[in-house]
């Protein structure tokens, strides 16, 4: 039996035992609606509020600053649209973000631009995939109503200076939102210390279930609903709460935060081993800053090969990973993240993202280090691009 290595934890994670067990009572016995006044409803309500308190504690927030949503994308949409509408009411229609945000942010901003006449400044993220607080400061205008910068990038794993950006925004009186979907449960996040006004998170990125997320919104800051209806979530998010999913999210996050130091030490060692191993492949490059990155994320490009082929051959060898090639994105262009850090199209097509979690082992890392060079070699052996490079008819870019 071939080894199975799941190395796509930035896409989604396996649920933890603690998360599954936290869910079960609310799927089976305690099925009441938290808005109902009889006891099975109130038991569900109690669980919901317990989960809210746990999640708030993990983020350095207060329970009444946490709103449950259906996913990270919903949280991003609500935060941005709310801040935009409140800004527009005061005549402020300028938003600052970065070129490599998740599509949940970029597409929301696009729509505000197209349909509501907002102006959007997308900051450069440089070759290392990090935006600096000074650049945010320089971009703030009198009519800026929102700055939204992700805490860590989902493709290349670079970590942004959130606390510094938050401080700049606080000083300028501009609302600061961060899409922290890849960061929460993986690196220390504290909304109070990091000057964050709004923050999005998603349960399935830290061993919780899919279909549940949360939005933190600082007390005193208005939050407009995206979904109208009942009075759930204090009128900010209608719809009967996903009690089981929310309880599982809280259990998963508590566990992730309790073990963060231990997990980080393990992951950094495995990550660095993989970076070192795969960097031995000629004409390869690590994408994003070497140091300022998530503990478990590696993203590399290999010249002369295309990402989808890499993934399919790796799948045959038991390795689940991902790529930012056009073929895997289903569009003409390769990943906007890789283009944003300045990679030429032809190089960006040959990207591989390996994202680990604490369930991965040293043997998994060794398997990846063994398989990837074989697959790259196999694809290069039939690549006209690579052959032209080898014959000197086409320049190597990396």
């Amino acid at each position, binding site marked *: 039996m071939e080894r199975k290595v799941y190395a796509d934890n930035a896409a989604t994670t396996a649920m933890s035992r603690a998360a599954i067990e936290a869910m079960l009572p609310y799927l089976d016995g305690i099925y009441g609606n938290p808005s109902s006044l009889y006891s099975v409803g109130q038991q569900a309500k109690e669980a919901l509020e317990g989960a809210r308190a746990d999640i708030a504690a993990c983020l350095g927030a207060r329970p009444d600053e946490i709103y449950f949503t259906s996913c990270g994308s919903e949280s991003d949409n609500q935060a941005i649209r709310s801040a935009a509408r409140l800004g527009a009411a005061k005549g402020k229609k300028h938003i600052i973000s970065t070129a490599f945000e998740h599509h949940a942010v970029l597409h929301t901003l696009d729509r505000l631009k197209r349909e509501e006449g907002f102006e959007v400044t997308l900051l450069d993220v440089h070759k290392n995939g990090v935006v600096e607080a000074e650049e945010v400061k320089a971009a703030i205008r009198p009519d800026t109503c929102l700055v939204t910068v992700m805490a860590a990038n989902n493709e290349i794993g670079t970590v942004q200076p959130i606390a510094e950006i938050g401080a700049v925004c606080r000083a300028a009186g501009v609302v600061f939102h961060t899409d922290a979907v890849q960061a929460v449960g993986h690196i220390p996040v504290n909304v109070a210390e990091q000057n964050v006004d709004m923050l999005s998170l998603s349960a399935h990125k830290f061993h919780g279930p899919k279909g549940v997320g949360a939005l933190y919104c600082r007390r005193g800051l208005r939050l407009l609903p995206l979904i109208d209806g009942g009075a759930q979530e204090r009128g900010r998010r209608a719809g009967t709460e996903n009690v089981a999913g929310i309880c599982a999210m809280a259990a998963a996050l508590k566990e992730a935060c309790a073990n963060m130091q231990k997990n980080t030490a393990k992951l950094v060692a495995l990550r660095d081993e993989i970076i070192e191993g795969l960097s031995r492949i000629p004409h390869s490059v690590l994408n994003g800053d070497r140091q300022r990155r998530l503990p478990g994320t590696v993203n590399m490009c290999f010249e002369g090969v295309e990402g*989808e*082929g890499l993934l399919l051959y790796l799948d045959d060898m038991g390795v689940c990973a991902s790529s930012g090639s*056009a073929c*895997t994105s*289903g569009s003409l262009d390769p990943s906007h993240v890789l283009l944003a850090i300045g990679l030429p*199209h032809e190089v960006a097509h040959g990207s591989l993202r390996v994202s680990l979690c604490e369930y991965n082992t040293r043997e998994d890392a060794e398997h990846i280090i063994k398989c990837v060079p074989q697959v790259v070699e196999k694809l290069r052996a*039939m690549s006209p*691009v690579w*052959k032209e490079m080898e014959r000197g008819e086409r320049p190597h870019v990396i």
Partner: protein
Amino acid sequence: MALYSEKVMDHFRNPRNVGEIPDADGVGEVGNARCGDIMKIYLKIKDGIIEDVKFNTFGCGSAIASSSMATELIKGKPLSQALELTNKAVAEALDGLPAHKLHCSVLAEEAIRAAIKDYYDKNGMEYDKSLFPEPDEDHEIHGD
């Protein structure tokens, strides 16, 4: 439910006719690296018959499988027959391609035509120009 048919996966895992022919009679290259796929076909031709064919492809799984299948379909065939090969025939022989991957079979058809045209041009042979429309440089057919 897999992304690709078993046939596609077979031709991707064990591509037929991979390689180059140093003294090829006709060479055709289509696509561009910017869009993420390039296909290069080499033909050895004798008495109007394709005696040998090899390919090199930079591209996704279906691009490699389409190249492999297309070369199988024309090997040993007269040029007139190879010119009749359509992208549809390549896709069908692979038991179908996902809609957004059909352009890979188009590339295979275009690469073969380009190689045959190269052979005609090199040998100063007469041919019906309408058989060889200019390949779509911008590769706009990507997607559906």
